[in-house]
């Protein structure tokens, strides 16, 4: 814990992430204005006392939209990484436990198959097939997260399984399930959390990308990616319109990446210590 | 040739090595024996100028009259490999995995400007043959991973002696090897010492291995000298309780006939070391005096640092 407080990238990442999460939570109960409300008379206004970050081409309050957009981005990240983390970790651990078996081969080849497709293209394909929308976007991003976590979990599990304390647990009479839960999970969890943090940043980026293309979050639900797309038309007249969502995306990706890096540095030396 | 005078090493407030003095002549081998945390490896690193930056050394280390502690990094670099060389416990980590053995041996010769690269290449083959690797021409083109542990250690030795250094430091060079291979490597080191007349610091946790090679032996414990003297005298009549305990803890014969007398307690952490004699907590003759003050050296058949030497003679 003391090491965590001394670590700059962890500190910056954690505080930035905390701010973003806090803003998203606040948006649940309060935003400066209704993010969906259009105002014909106050279109494309620069920031002022009432509209802190100005308004867009329909006169909607940018600050409010960004706040709700943060909520959507985090939700996508949470669910997509959750899907990847859960299924990926379980598959990876099982593949490792039965290393070299048919199960291992099938799981890992199937995941290679998913891995081999260009993620964004396939996500577009899925969303075109099953219809655009937040839910399908989350599922698509989640699907591509599974192999990432599975590989990490398999590698980490294989490494832990070679340690003598796993043999000692078998000699104690523990079955496969209890060895995985009691000994493997606590020992790989740190690495997996680091990975989750990095994947979280990527998921936010992916959601922004899909929404930018118009197949992610659907209007009137605000999304950073779509705000960026909308702003394109007015880039010359109102550059701030693009700069604010762009910064939101960049800052949150940075925040979770720094958090992940920091966690890695904090967790790694403890692993080396054995 | 090598004179170490009051060498002390500290890590912040922690004393990793208390002021230590010894000397080494050409052709002589000083064995340094100790357990984990005894300070034996950092002594070697200090001489090579390879201490981690967080550690500070005091005192002086004179190699042929030149104080190594006063030299800057570039002058040390010129000496390393040329005047002093080191071999390690695990040659795999000390050898470059993507460079052939021959090139690694030749590198030092070229680097120190002793030879052209063609001459160095053929000298490398000669050295490979000298350390007893079969088919030297072929081995020169091998990579470290293609050799066995013992062969890699031989390659390391070839590298270390390539520039005919005055001082060779061997830090646990046989601890990772099988006994039969260990015996071969020890024999090789003995031969090379006779041939080149270099001085050797031989560091090991194993008193028996040290006794095969060292003319004199220094016993370290918890970063302080316990006893130093001619190896034969020290083994035949150890004066310090720690040396005696160490010898008694080595199994001889059978449990039924000659039961072991272990040293009680466990090896202390460096930062928790007491002020006085570091061994006093585990010592059977330890008294209040031992906790308070470090003993002065007592010179007799060996030099021992102990307050309670039973009138100066061994047990």
């Amino acid at each position: 814990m003391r090491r965590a407080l001394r670590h700059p990238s962890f500190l910056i990442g954690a505080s930035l992430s905390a701010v973003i999460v806090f803003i998203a939570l606040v948006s649940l109960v309060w935003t400066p204005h209704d993010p969906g409300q259009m105002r014909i008379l106050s279109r494309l206004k620069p920031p002022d006392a009432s509209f802190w970050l100005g308004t867009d081409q329909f006169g909607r309050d940018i600050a409010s939209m960004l706040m709700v957009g943060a909520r959507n981005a985090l939700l996508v990240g949470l669910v997509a990484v959750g899907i990847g983390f859960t299924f990926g970790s379980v598959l990876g651990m099982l593949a490792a436990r039965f290393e070299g078996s048919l199960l291992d081969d099938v799981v890992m080849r199937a995941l290679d198959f998913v891995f081999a497709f260009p993620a964004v293209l396939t996500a577009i394909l899925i969303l075109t097939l099953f219809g655009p929308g937040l839910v399908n976007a989350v599922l698509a991003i989640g699907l591509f997260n599974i192999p990432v976590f599975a590989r990490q979990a398999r590698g980490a599990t294989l490494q832990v399984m070679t340690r003598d304390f796993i043999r000692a647990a078998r000699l104690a009479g523990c079955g496969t399930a209890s060895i995985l839960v009691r000994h493997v999970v606590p020992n790989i969890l740190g690495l997996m959390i680091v990975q989750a943090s990095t994947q979280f940043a990527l998921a936010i980026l992916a959601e922004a990308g899909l929404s930018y293309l118009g197949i992610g979050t659907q209007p009137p639900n605000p999304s950073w990616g779509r705000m960026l797309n909308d702003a394109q038309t007015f880039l010359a007249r109102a550059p701030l319109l693009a700069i604010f969502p762009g910064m939101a995306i960049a800052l949150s990706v940075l925040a979770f990446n720094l958090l992940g890096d920091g966690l890695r540095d904090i967790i790694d030396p403890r692993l080396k210590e054995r | 040739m090598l004179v170490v005078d009051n060498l002390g090493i500290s890590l912040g407030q922690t004393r990793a090595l208390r002021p230590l003095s010894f000397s080494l002549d050409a052709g002589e081998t000083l064995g340094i024996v100790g357990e984990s945390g005894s300070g034996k490896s950092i002594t070697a690193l200090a001489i090579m100028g390879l201490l981690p930056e967080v550690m500070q050394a005091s005192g002086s280390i004179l190699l042929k009259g030149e104080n190594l502690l006063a030299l800057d990094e570039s002058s040390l670099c010129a000496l390393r490999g040329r005047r002093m060389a080191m071999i390690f416990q695990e040659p795999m980590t000390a050898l470059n995995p993507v460079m052939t053995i021959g090139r690694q041996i030749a590198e030092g010769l070229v680097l120190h400007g002793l030879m052209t690269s063609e001459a160095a290449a053929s000298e490398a083959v000669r050295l490979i043959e000298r350390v007893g690797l079969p088919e030297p021409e072929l081995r020169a083109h091998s990579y470290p991973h293609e050799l066995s542990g013992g062969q890699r250690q031989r390659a390391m030795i070839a590298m270390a002696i390539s520039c005919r250094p005055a001082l060779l430091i061997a830090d646990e060079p046989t601890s990772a090897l099988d006994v039969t291979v260990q015996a071969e490597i020890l024999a090789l080191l003995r031969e090379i010492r006779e041939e080149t007349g270099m001085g050797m610091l031989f560091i090991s946790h194993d008193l028996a291995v040290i006794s095969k090679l060292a003319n004199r032996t220094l016993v370290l414990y918890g970063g302080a000298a316990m006893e130093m003297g001619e190896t034969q005298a020290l083994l035949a009549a150890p004066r310090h309780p720690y040396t005696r305990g160490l010898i008694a803890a080595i199994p001889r014969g059978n449990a039924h006939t000659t039961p072991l007398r272990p040293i009680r307690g466990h090896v202390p952490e460096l930062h928790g070391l007491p002020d006085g004699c570091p061994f006093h907590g585990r010592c059977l003759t330890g008294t209040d005096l031992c906790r308070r003050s470090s003993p002065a050296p007592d010179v007799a058949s060996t030099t021992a640092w102990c307050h309670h030497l039973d009138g100066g003679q061994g047990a």
Partner: protein
Amino acid sequence: MSAILDVVDLHHRYPLPRDGIFAQRQYVQAVEGLSFALEEGKILGIVGESGSGKSTLARLLVALETPQRGEVRFRGERISGLREARLRPFRRQIQMIFQDPFGSLDPRMRIGASIAEPLGVAEPGLDVAGRRRRIVAMLERVGLGEGAMMRYPHQFSGGQRQRIAIARALITHPKLLVADEPVSALDVSVQAQILNLLLDLKLEFGLSLVFISHDLGIVRYLSDRVIVMQHGKVVEEGESEALFSRPAAAYTKTLIAAMPRL
């Protein structure tokens, strides 16, 4: 005297990683045709250098691996090749201690929980207080206090960790203990303590012991009988004193000659 452990014509090999999907699988023969027996209450020393197959043998003896051929019998019953569920009754009777006391304890588990693990499987009926009493008694027996229970492995020295590993192995009162290089990673001054502790506990618990080591001095010190292994085969077998004073096989002679002595 009857045998607690019988090993009959044991063979084991490991697959090497394949060069490609279609390449023929290659194997390393680790153990080849081993047969021996261990008398109840005795110590059998197994000596060999790296690659002799002695660690593979240890894992075969405690049924962590299944041999390709041959049998391991515990008090006459075959334990090799059994499913995990059929093996469970034997697990509490056959235990092992490992070379690396840093690796054999789960770094994320408190000492108390580590020692409780085999006890929980072997005696599920034991209540919390009873379990605690047993663990504390065992910790004290190996020279550690009750305070150790709530601490983590990294808070102990190598020798203390090996004591904890011994406590864990003996908590279910096994009859057979396989020790694979249990003191090789320890400081010299601590090795003797652990060897003496093992000898004391052997008498107290009525253990039979397989003691595997590369160190001839230690094997000679402990063992009643000794097996010398090389390349997965038995080179020589005999009563300890006789084998060390009058070795018959050339390899045994080489080993003894190479052993550094004071």
